[in-house]
């Protein structure tokens, strides 16, 4: 396979060197030569050069000065410096400021220079490949996020219509008119809606961390209890909030974290328990917020404790989406929070969360 010609620019104030270079390498590479830094710049402006070789000792502009001057405007071509004598200072300067890939002493050895150009071109390719891959990945990731977002929206609209129809059936007193069919439709629709909402939460969690905003835990917990206890009025909530200092944080993620935990505490109650209880304690200081959420629900089996935060883990008996606690964990990771859980089958479950105060 014929490889595409590598475009090499050689800048030197001695015409003889330029001629010799051309004579040695014109078969292997596409060669451009320039008699001064200014001439070299003109070529860079017109040709997509991949490797630049510049002589250090030139009148007006030295090789290093030239490389320095193009670090911003032409960052991609790989630079090789040719020096006629060993000038340590020039070399140090070149490596520190000129982004030089290699230096070669004059008079050059054809094989050494040839190998250097080949290696420089490989370095060039890797650099460009990596950048293209990054751009591609970012684009794919972006598309995926947008896809999830719009699918969740498009899926949800007709689903919400179905739930609306069920509400209408209830209002017209037809809910029990066809055995339990309407009830089944309602259960399935709510489940699907729950999955879609979790998918959306997960999508939003993937986005960047928002600017910290003021979080009033008293209000937030009240709102969340109202939202999730809506369908279950049996559970007794005991809430104690100790917040004497302001707390700043990522309100959306904190809402997602606490919302999922509170909803779980309500959902996973023991059916037989007459006094269903959820206890929420919040303690805020200048450094962090410590939140404990405990219930006297069905508890989590010891062997499941390790797995509850993994994606799509669900217990056999009581299936949720397998996403709730996974999202909690992911959201906490994003805001440097921590979570610990203790549970037993007899007494219920306690989650302890710590979230740093952004102040």
């Amino acid at each position, binding site marked *: 396979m014929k490889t595409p010609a590598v475009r090499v620019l050689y800048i030197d104030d001695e015409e003889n060197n330029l001629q010799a270079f051309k004579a040695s390498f014109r078969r292997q590479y596409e060669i451009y030569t320039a008699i001064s830094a200014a001439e070299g710049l003109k070529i860079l402006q017109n040709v997509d050069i991949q490797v630049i070789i510049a002589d250090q000792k030139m009148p007006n502009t030295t090789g290093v000065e030239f490389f320095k001057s193009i670090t911003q405007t032409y960052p991609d071509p790989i630079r090789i410096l040719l020096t006629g004598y060993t000038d340590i200072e020039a070399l140090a300067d070149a490596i520190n400021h000129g982004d030089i890939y290699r230096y070669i002493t004059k008079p050059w050895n054809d094989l050494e220079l040839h190998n250097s150009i080949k290696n420089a071109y490989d370095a060039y390719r890797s650099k460009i490949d990596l950048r293209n891959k990054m751009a591609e990945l970012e684009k794919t990731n972006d598309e995926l996020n947008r896809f999830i977002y719009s699918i969740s929206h498009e899926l949800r609209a007709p689903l919400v219509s179905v739930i609306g129809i069920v509400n*209408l059936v209830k209002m017209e007193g037809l809910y029990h008119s066809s055995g339990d069919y309407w009830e089944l439709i309602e259960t399935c629709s709510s489940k699907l809606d729950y999955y879609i909402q979790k998918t959306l939460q997960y999508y939003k969690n993937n986005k960047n961390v928002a600017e910290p905003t003021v979080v009033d835990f008293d209000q937030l917990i009240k709102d969340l209890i109202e939202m999730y206890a809506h369908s279950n009025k049996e559970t007794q909530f005991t809430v104690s909030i100790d917040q004497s200092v302001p707390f700043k944080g990522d309100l959306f993620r904190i809402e997602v974290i606490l919302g999922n935990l509170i909803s779980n505490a309500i959902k996973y109650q023991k059916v037989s328990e007459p006094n269903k209880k959820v206890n929420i304690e919040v303690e805020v200081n200048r450094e962090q917020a410590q939140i404990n959420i405990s219930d006297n629900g069905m508890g989590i089996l010891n062997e499941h404790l390790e797995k509850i935060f993994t994606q799509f883990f669900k217990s056999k008996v009581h299936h949720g989406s397998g996403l709730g606690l996974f999202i909690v964990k992911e959201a906490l990771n994003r805001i440097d929070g921590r979570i610990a859980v203790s549970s037993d089958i007899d007494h219920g479950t306690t989650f302890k969360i710590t979230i740093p105060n952004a102040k």
Partner: protein
Amino acid sequence: MQSRPKKLMLIDDNEIDLKINAKLINLANLFQEIIICRSGEEALDFLNKYLSTPELLPDFILLDIQMPEMDGFEFLEHYKDFPEKRPVAMLSSTLDFGDIKRAEANPYVIKLLKKPLSPSELEVLISR
């Protein structure tokens, strides 16, 4: 019973949702009459047509967000110049915080109601 507001304008491009919501509102007996508009343009035409006969204008507007061509927010842009303004509630299946904030930041919108429409929630709103 307190005198209920007479006319509701329902703006939504979705035929099924129009049907469901009109029926829900009728069953809950919240309005005497429902004016149905299938697009923001149709609603604006209606409002402009009856500008000189305010008794024919709606007392309350329920506005969907996602609609083709003129969406709910664009409708509000035009509504801004309408001289006989009545309270507007937006109605959407959106869960997007951006949409919710944007809706409630609009001076003519009193609330964003989530689909499915809850008649009791709407009742609280109109009795304010």
